[in-house]
């Protein structure tokens, strides 16, 4: 066997990595070349993260890294160490008790087949934190990096505004309870 072939059949480099996903720490042995999207789906069974294009265009694989939306198909799992990863399951994983963004999608009929939805949920969740009262144009701009082949987007734009409404209402409730609590403490 010549040098070339022996190199080509060289063992797959793997590493032991520590990943923090949805608040839980995992220690995994994975090939260095494994993308975060594949580790989430295959090693951690978090199949809510969908994989469409694997070159950053469709947005289905969007997760949050330290709270900011990024493409999980464009980062190696090994490079996501030392960061906090949040997938759609980390935003809401209970059909009986959906998160505000998920409730907004139900209220606005924001999905049909659902393939694109996890990427929209992670994107909109972070966006509404940053911009609690978006204009229509800002809402459209916020989701412009995610493709949906079913809905025609109108209802997803509505879901952005509905999320903002639900989060504002919930924020108000929170601050009222805080006030009550601090009054009770007095």
């Amino acid at each position, binding site marked *: 066997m010549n040098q070339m072939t022996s190199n080509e059949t*060289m063992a*797959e*480099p793997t*590493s032991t990595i520590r990943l923090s996903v949805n608040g839980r720490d995992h220690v995994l042995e994975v*090939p*260095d*070349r494994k*993308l975060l999207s*594949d580790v989430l789906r295959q090693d951690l069974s978090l199949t809510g993260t969908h994989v469409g294009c*694997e*070159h*950053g265009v469709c*947005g289905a694989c*969007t997760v949050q*890294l330290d709270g*900011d*939306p*990024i*493409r999980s*198909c*464009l*980062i*190696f799992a*090994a*490079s996501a*160490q*030392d960061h906090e990863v949040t997938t759609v399951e980390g935003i809401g994983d209970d059909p009986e008790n959906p998160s505000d963004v998920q409730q907004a999608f139900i209220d606005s009929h924001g999905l049909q087949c659902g393939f694109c939805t996890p990427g929209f949920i992670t*994107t909109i969740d972070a966006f509404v934190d940053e911009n609690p009262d978006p204009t229509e*144009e800002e809402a459209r*701009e*916020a989701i*412009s*990096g995610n493709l949906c082949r079913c809905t025609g987007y109108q209802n997803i734009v509505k879901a952005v505004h509905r999320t903002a409404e639900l989060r504002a209402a919930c924020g108000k409730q929170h601050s009222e309870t805080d006030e009550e609590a601090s009054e009770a403490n007095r």
Partner: protein
Amino acid sequence: MKPSPLRIHRPKTIEEILELLSVHGTSGKIIAGGQSLVPVLNMRLAAPRNLIDITSAAGLDELEVVGDEIRVGALVSHRRLERDPATTSANPILADALRHVAHPAIRNRGTTVGSIAHADPNGEMPMILALTGGWVEVRSVRGARSLTTESLNVGPLETCLEPDELITSAVFPALRPGQRAGFDELARRSGDYGLAGVGMILSTDDNGVDRAGAEATITGLKAGFVSVTDIPDIIELDEFVAGTPLSQVSTILDDVISAIKGFIDPGGDIHASADYRRHLTGVIAGRLLKRLSRQRDGGGSPAGGSEMRQEGAR
């Protein structure tokens, strides 16, 4: 669509990066945000055996305006630069162009220095570095050097960097008093690479001194382009504009546009023919020049809304 087998190294200091590059530079690649490199690996257009992931190294995340220089470390994301108030007040053209780089989710991870190293003629930031007269600072185990964009960019997707060299930062000069700058482009979909884009720096004699109501006069103009030149070539247009009062900009528009259309060298592809790109570049340049002439100081589109984007909307 998966990368071929490779080893990822995660150095913690600049010195470790340089050591690794001196050993693996020829069989490997630096990976920063990965927003250009990982698609290339996923599609197996490249198969480096080693990746040197610089994202956990200390000392590469400086973002500072020092005097009249905006210093951008290798790990500063497009998004961080776009939102940095000190950068925008020193030179609004950076944020103006960054808003056209991909989508927010790509800008969260992609670095401006990585984009300059990638040297894509369709990329906004290599051109902005050239237009502003900026440079990159480069290190290897052999030493340090600074490179202007003319020496850095040798061809489309090609720089003069040696395999063992790391760009530690890019430096963008601030605007000088009396200058205004802006960027605009047209893309087929929001976040796509532009079909054509134009950046301009317009100089005037309005240097902040009280002029007792006298009108400012244009003293110079230069322009750079996205997607219609092979490397970030800058055209100096002073001869067409110098001496024209700002309010008379419409009298020089035709000359400026035809000089630009003669200067650029667009190619045609499935998205747009060469002629269409040339025409578009002229239209964008004309609108941008009018916008800058009307603007008070600095430049940069207010709230990121650009005329082209609205008019060109799907």
